[in-house]
């Protein structure tokens, strides 16, 4: 019988295998050692690799990310865990002013091969500031790569690719999917290339673009609408948010002529706007309807009594699909 893992198990396995494979890899973060991380992503790794390679740091995000930049410049490959995406803000300056720019500033003399892993997104009944989806901050900054897997298989393959990437990678892990389901994950090390989207389901009437936890919502909506209205949806998991896989996006909309972007991030200046721009630049004349965005709202992610009302649902996505289909 094939082995099935949750996303969190797949992420642990990726780090475990890279720690064994490359002595330059180091994990750093708050509570990641003895405690195994707040989500247990680093469970037992400190016992296997010791406290010099799996480091419980002081509680200081600028310190963690800044020190990791120095480690990366001097021969290490740090993999940083930030407990929740909104906790990254104290380290934001280090990411945008230094990690993203070191190669540029030094004309390629120094670079920062590091990964910053962080759970993101709503739907877990977390306290305030535990549910943010601000991927656009990072996708806007030249010098960073931004990755958001939606399955255990991709999480392992993308994380291994991120740890082997010469540039800093912001690795966004959809909290809601950590233990939501299991999937077959090969035991060996494999890579899912950064920068390549995946056509999850082929279709001919509407293209739906999503990532992270919203992929599941998009898939649900696609299934329901096919059953209820006979519309054939092509569902695409973007997987990498910077650089976007333009070719896959364009090939799909040229085929379907209609598109819906689903993201739980706030609407304004969210990546949906960027995807629409790419479509306008490259495939406007193929389009039969304006591209629809189904997103979180331009409000702080609310606390959990109304959290589900913030998040896009399959119902909302279906409405969007119908709107483009009947334009």
């Amino acid at each position, binding site marked *: 019988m094939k082995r099935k893992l949750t996303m969190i198990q797949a992420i642990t396995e990726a780090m475990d295998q890279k720690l064994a494979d490359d002595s330059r890899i180091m994990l750093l973060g708050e509570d990641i050692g003895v405690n195994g991380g707040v989500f247990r992503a680093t469970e037992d790794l400190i016992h296997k690799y010791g406290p010099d390679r799996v480091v419980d740091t002081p509680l200081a995000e600028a310190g963690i990310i*800044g020190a990791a*930049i*120095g480690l990366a410049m*001097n021969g290490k490959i740090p993999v940083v865990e930030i407990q929740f995406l909104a906790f990254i803000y*104290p380290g934001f300056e280090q990411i945008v*002013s230094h990690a993203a720019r070191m190669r540029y500033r030094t004309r*390629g003399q120094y670079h920062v091969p590091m990964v910053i892993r962080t759970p993101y997104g709503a739907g877990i009944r977390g306290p305030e500031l535990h549910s943010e989806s601000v991927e656009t901050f990072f996708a806007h900054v030249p010098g960073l790569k931004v990755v958001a897997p939606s399955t255990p298989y991709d999480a392992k393959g993308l994380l291994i690719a991120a740890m082997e990437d010469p540039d800093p990678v912001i690795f966004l892990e959809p909290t809601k999917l950590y233990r939501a389901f299991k999937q077959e994950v090969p035991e060996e090390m494999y890579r899912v290339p950064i920068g390549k989207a995946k056509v999850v389901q082929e279709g001919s009437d509407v293209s739906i673009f999503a990532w992270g936890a919203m992929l599941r919502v998009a898939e649900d909506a696609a299934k329901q609408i096919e059953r209820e209205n006979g519309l054939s949806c092509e569902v695409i998991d973007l997987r990498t948010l910077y650089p976007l896989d333009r070719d896959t996006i364009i090939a799909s909309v040229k085929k379907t002529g209609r598109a819906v972007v689903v993201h739980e991030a706030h609407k304004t200046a969210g990546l949906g706007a960027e995807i629409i721009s790419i479509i306008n630049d490259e495939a406007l004349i193929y389009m039969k309807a304006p591209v629809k965005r189904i997103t979180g709202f331009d409000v702080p992610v609310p606390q959990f009594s109304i959290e589900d009302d913030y998040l896009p649902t399959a119902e909302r996505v279906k409405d969007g699909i119908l709107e483009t289909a009947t334009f």
Partner: protein
Amino acid sequence: MSSLYQVLSPAGELVGDLKGQLDEATMIKMYENMVLARQFDRKSINLQRQGRMGTYAPFEGQEASQVGSAMALTPGDWLFPTYRDHAAAIVHGQSMARVFLYWMGHMEGSISPKHLNIMPPCVPIATQMVHAVGTAWASKLQNEKHVSIAYFGDGASSEGDFHEALNFAGVFQTPTIFFCQNNGFAISVPFSQQSSSKTIAQRSAAYDIPGVRIDGNDIFAVWLTMKEAMQRALDGKGPTLIEAVTFRYGAHTTADDPKKYRDQESLSEEWRQERDPLQRLRVYLENQGLWNETKEAELVARMNEQIDAALVEAESYPKSKPEDMFKHVYAEPSWMATEQESELVKPSKQEGIPA
């Protein structure tokens, strides 16, 4: 001033122990480097005034701190300067032409000579301090006998990164030297308004690392303190915080007017007369029979020649091409960069379209 560690008094007299570590050749080299630094700084301000250089951050008055600390380093050590530490970078091996290039707006001005680890001037405040913890930490883990030195000013001690850096360095016992040049002002704000702690050195107690407050215009004190801190770091005994008390005679940058916030002329004059770092070493060397007017004239001429040669090199550096901005953003250029670059260089499509 009496609470400061001092070896060479402002009158040029030895008031401390040289511990048998400072030979005459080193002392003369110190003086030569300080003269070079001062001439370079003055030249840079002139170039800015002539429109041959962009905004520049001068350091005159801080030569002993920068030269003395950088002379203590060895080639494998990592140096993290701010935008005011050109003398430290030059003494550690950065070419003056590169420093000119940086301030002339060329990205290539940030390139470190091969086999030296000299970081580009850090513009955000205190952020480089944590990087110096990281590189030092890696050196320790890789069993390399090198230290990392982070330069910063008194204003930086108010930033969160200052505290995070000291705390990390203490926890992980990294071979990092935190070298503060307390020049009295963070742009316009005096230290008394920057901090209610009387000194920066005393902050070291909070992190249980050694901290020392020294006369930053006394190059012997700077050098001996650095040597001790380096030895401690290389012996695996962790970081040191050094507060070198000094003064910048001039403006924060060439775009700033210090007359607005301090009695510029009398304050600078007072520091110059009472504590100038070049003057006191020169008096000492003269009293030892190691220096005289002839040597001074010869040195200034020689240093100016070197500076002029660096300037010729910088000014004849090929003009950067617009497409250079697309290089080194990522290891491999993204499709966006490739396309945007071709947009930048291709001829306009507007031609031939009737108005």
